[in-house]
């Protein structure tokens, strides 16, 4: 039951929020976190918003890897090369996703 579904909040009324799960599926769920507002990306579990998705921290995970490679890279050139390739690919992927627009904001 660690299953969580990512969704986007369409609107909040008191302790209830309507969340868009994509594919035309929307559902009313309980607000289980502080200060949720329309447009937020959230993790929903068993009908409750349990967490928010943060874009700010999105790439942080790769910086953990970078740091890892830097340490091991002192005597391992290969690790640094992986990381460089990871960085380039990550940039490509995120830029491609953004250019594609992903979800389109309703006017």
């Amino acid at each position, binding site marked *: *039951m*660690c299953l969580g579904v990512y969704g986007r909040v369409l609107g909040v009324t008191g302790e209830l929020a309507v969340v868009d799960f994509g594919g035309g599926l929307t559902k009313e769920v309980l607000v289980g976190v502080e200060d949720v507002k329309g447009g937020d990306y959230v993790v929903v579990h068993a*009908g409750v918003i*349990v967490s928010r998705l*943060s*874009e700010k921290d999105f790439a942080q995970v790769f910086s953990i890897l970078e740091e890892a490679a830097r340490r091991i890279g002192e005597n391992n050139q290969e690790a640094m090369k992986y990381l460089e390739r990871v960085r380039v690919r*990550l940039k490509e*992927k995120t830029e491609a*996703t953004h250019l594609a627009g992903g979800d389109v*904001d309703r006017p």
Partner: protein
Amino acid sequence: MAHAKDLRTLTKSVFRDGVLAGEIVKMINDYWEQVKLKETSVVKIMNFCGTHEYASTHYGIRSVLPPGVELVAGPGCPVCITPSFYVEAAVKLAIEGVTVYTYGDSYKLPAVKAVDGCRSLSDARMMGHDVRVVYSFLDAARDAATHKKPSVFLAVGFETTCPAYASAISNNLVPPNLTLIMAGRLTPPAAKYSVERVGKVSGVIAPGHVSTITGAGVWRFLPEEYGVPAVVAGFEPLDVLIAIALILRQILEGEPRLEIEYSRTVTWEGNRKAKALLERYFEVVDAAWRGIGFIERSGLAFREEYSDLDAFRVYGIREPSREEWRHDLLPGCICGQVILGSAKPSDCKMFMKACTPGTPYGPCMVSTEGACSIWARMGGSGVVLEV
């Protein structure tokens, strides 16, 4: 009209990318070559959570790991560890005319003892009793409010799920005819139990969504008390691969610590609102885990002032004490060992013979997060990296 960055699309695009996965697999191999020189034994990494087991199996992660790096399942499937007694009590109440609500996952959960020929809530429904499958507790509360008949909810779940109960209660959404069979369980005590009782675990991939509630900090005891590296990870294939790489790095450096890989949603302190709600309605008690037994301070029970919500209180059902607890798996089922990472589903003689997802014999074959069910549906260790 502006284009928004859709974090869902971005997550899938990045965290399921085959090229990135390939690079991280190379990194894992590289670390492993160096770890091998230090460690004589295999490195055994526990996927604490059923959803990690799902990701590992579904994406064939075992098939791309070096032979010495072993991924084992852990006790993180709440349906698998819900004591048989709770299912028997729910079935009995259904037979007595109470409307029973359950999640789809626990609907087929087989009990050890049949009640009037019914071994599960699905059997009870087939016998014409009022058992209703719902997506959420909120749906059950709303439905129960419409018919006003005596009703219970089989409230299984870990820290991620239990705020759903507390939140609905605090918002006065639970009608007076609905009570809960409170089967909530806490994951850190079970992780502690696993590392104490089950041989050597070299690292733990700690549950991501549980940690959104508890905060990653609850896993500090793993490195600090047991010297076991721990990484709180997400559920995409890259999340799991990165967690493995980080654990290997910690082993290599000889510095076990706790890291958050799933930083896009997990913080150190967790969800304050949900934690406060849990604290308000529930107290922490010693509790039974199916196939394992009692684990200290691992369960949630209603506080005295909210006991009118407790189905066992309302219907006069007494839970077995620690002394009265009996092993609650059917003969031959080795779920207890599977969820503690000491056996693989395929080690069980019943696996895909007497026990299949269509006709589950043991609890780990029921839930989509049960290790046996995952192995049955995905073909064991998986051979293809589907990224």
